[in-house]
């Protein structure tokens, strides 16, 4: 866990340009560090994908609740009528 915070600060540009250049120089000399940077970037993409899936599940559940609520019946009726073929 020793480099995870440093890599995060580098990727999120929370360090100065000089520190950023120094960090990049270190990745050129240390292939393990370079690989860690690559996998950490991948980790953020995984977290984003996971989060989107979770949020979409949450929205689907809310939508089900919305369309089945008696007070929304007229509204839904008007909307579904848009899709009726002539």
């Amino acid at each position, binding site marked *: *866990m020793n480099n*995870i*915070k440093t890599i*995060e600060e580098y990727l999120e540009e929370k360090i100065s340009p000089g520190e950023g250049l120094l960090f990049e120089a270190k990745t050129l000399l240390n292939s393990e560090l370079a*690989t*860690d940077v690559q*996998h*950490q970037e*991948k*980790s*953020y*993409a*995984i*977290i*984003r*994908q*996971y*989060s*989107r*899936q*979770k*949020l*979409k599940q*949450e*929205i*689907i559940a*809310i*939508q089900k609740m*919305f369309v089945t609520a008696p007070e929304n019946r007229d*509204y839904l009726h*008007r*909307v*579904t009528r*848009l*899709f009726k073929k002539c």
Partner: protein
Amino acid sequence: MIAIDNKTLISAEQREAFFITLYQTAFSRVAHYVARMGGSFDEAQDVFQDALVIYYEKVISSGDGRIVNEKAYVMGIAKKIWLQRYKANNKNQPLSDFDMAVEAEEQISTNKMLAYLETAGKKCMALLKACYYDRLSVADIAVSFGYSSIHSASVAKYKCLEKVRETAKQNSLQYADFIE
């Protein structure tokens, strides 16, 4: 104009109210558009769900969360999703491809990793979502997840991130393990 941000969307109840309001105000416009384009009610619902995901991300990342015309904004996103997904005759493209170029092979690999990570650590993934996606502060995360201090929450966050990174690393080393 509305004023919302990640502070007002912390809890599931707050997000529920946020999304229900959008269903009431913006869904019919999207449905009109999808119907006019020859789509079905199910497709309209699917496009709207994805538009809400993108809109949520916009609100969370925009800092002060001020969107001048919420309905028009959601409509714009929905149109873009519809045109990308259905006009190109490429139905059911996952949302992850909306603005992320993911190779098909990599997508399978990622899905396997997601399933593994969720099984191995739901709390970790929930914490990482709260931090990196919902953009809650570490102080809010400490309260939501029951950590005794901000420091403990911060340590937990990095440990969880390390777990995902290690899984990504193993995945690249043993790619075959994640292939269906």
